[in-house]
């Protein structure tokens, strides 16, 4: 589950999910909604990201997904497979090609979170849009 929260000059993405992998999957769905893309596509792209910890890895993941949209017009809508390590991840995502608005200017570390909560995980990422 994800939701977008608005602030003065930014948007905040909050994610709650039962597992770590699902947090990354929810982020893909949230980005697709932000970019105005629904449904599924058959285009596939490999995505790799690395970072020092889980919150930074989530930021790096979203940055890669946003960069694919800006540079190739490819909007990821779902994760096909993912190998999630301690400080890196390798994944294949599927989605659609188009002309999405390059809304995401940057993925910030401001109030960045990714931590266990209750039975699952809670994450927060603030985007410069």
């Amino acid at each position, binding site marked *: 589950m994800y939701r977008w929260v608005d602030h003065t000059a930014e948007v905040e993405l909050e994610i709650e999910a039962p597992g770590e992998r699902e947090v990354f999957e929810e982020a893909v769905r949230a980005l697709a909604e932000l970019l105005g893309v629904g449904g599924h596509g058959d285009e596939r792209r490999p995505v790799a990201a690395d970072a020092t910890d889980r919150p*930074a890895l989530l930021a790096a993941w979203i940055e890669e997904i946003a960069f694919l949209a800006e540079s190739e017009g490819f909007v990821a809508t779902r994760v096909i497979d993912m190998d999630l390590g301690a400080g890196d991840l390798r994944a294949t995502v599927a989605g659609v090609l188009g002309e999405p608005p390059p809304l995401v200017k940057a993925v910030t570390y*401001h109030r960045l979170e990714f931590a266990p909560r209750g039975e699952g995980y809670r994450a927060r990422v603030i985007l410069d849009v």
Partner: protein
Amino acid sequence: MYETRRIDDELWELPVGTVPGMRAPARVFADAELLAAIEQDRSLEQLANVATLPGILDAALAMPDIHQGYGFPVGGVAATDASDGVISPGGVGYDINCGVRLLALPLGYDELLGDRRERLVHEMSRNVPVGTGGRGAREGIRGANLDRVLSLGPRALLEDLGIGSEAELAFTESGGCLEGADPAAVSARARERGAGQIGTLGSGNHFLELQRVEAVYEADAAEAFGLRLGQLTVLIHSGSRGLGHQVCTDFVKRMDARLAHYGIELPDRQLSCAPVESPEGRDYRRAMEAAANFAWASRAAIAHRVRQAIASVLGPGTAERTRQVYDVAHNVAKLERHEGRMVCVHRKGATRAFPPDHPEIPSEYAAVGQPVFVPGSMGTASYVLAGRPGAMARSFGTTCHGAGRRMSRTAVRKAVDGRELRRKLEASGIVVRAPSARGLAEEAPEAYKDVDRVVGIVERAGLAARVVRLRPVGVVKG
């Protein structure tokens, strides 16, 4: 809500201890009414967090247009000791060298007869690509050599493409070139994002504005700046586009990963930093300065395109006699000498405001001080200020940069209908060109604080003096 202590009529302080780890107090230039508005978001907490940075000098400072940003508030000034302090990409912001350039036309508003005002605004909107996608992302100046732009700024466009002039370079902060810039420090992704964007406006609060001088406060300074009552001006607000955003992104991540190595603990990871003289600090300065040069070149290219619009509508002679008053950055970090020591001054949403006789301002302005441009909102007014000695004494040579946002984009979209706003602006004599009603609504006057009040505070605080007030008569929104 934090406890603020009134120091004088225009300065308030959050003492050390307001948040854990503060190494200096945090101070805000404001009056009681603006302070109440500032307290509506998290900007004071962010300012107090800035005061935890290693090597911070005097205080974490905020201008009256402060509002919530990422890690650092927008409208913040943080000066750190260059020998043992840190440099922080978040203290510059994502849009490195976002800034403002003012052009003065050799015409008065009364001379803009018939439909020429509407045609001029229309031509400016045709010539300068706006927005983040489509033309706005791809139709940069052709033939620009990115490495030379990153190294030399607008001088590369002048030497390679004949864009701009020596006079324009002279009337640009730092001559439009920070000499420590190193293109090799800029990542491949940053280059890819910025390559096609030199001379494009961008989106958000970026704009071109056609204005008339509606009030003169300091005749000597106005004369030195070449401004007179009724004169037409064009204000350009833009930055380093995707390239700058990526440079900031790259170095926030890189420095965040080295915080433990340097023994730095921060209340917010967006304050990520490294010692000024560390490998990370030096590389960031090289890349940030290259992005700053890119932004100055981009504003020079936009000005070139505006001149083409002026030539098309008002004739080539008018375009040739249109002169650049100045170009000033409001998102940058610079090494400067203050009170005998080298200081790394981070200005994020804040403008350098050097006083008369400072060696770094053009000799033509030496008697009156450095020009500072303070855009208000598109329905109100903007100001030209001049730097004053108080800025050196109180704010590391810095003043405000705008009116300051007070409403979120969503909140203002809910409160304002973009089409109705366009009708209102046009009914009040402002020609509007905007790619979307939604984007127009986000920049409605209601979204911003009162620019007259903001400017009044920095003037009473002795940071800068009002020179002229500019009234918009045409807006091209990014």
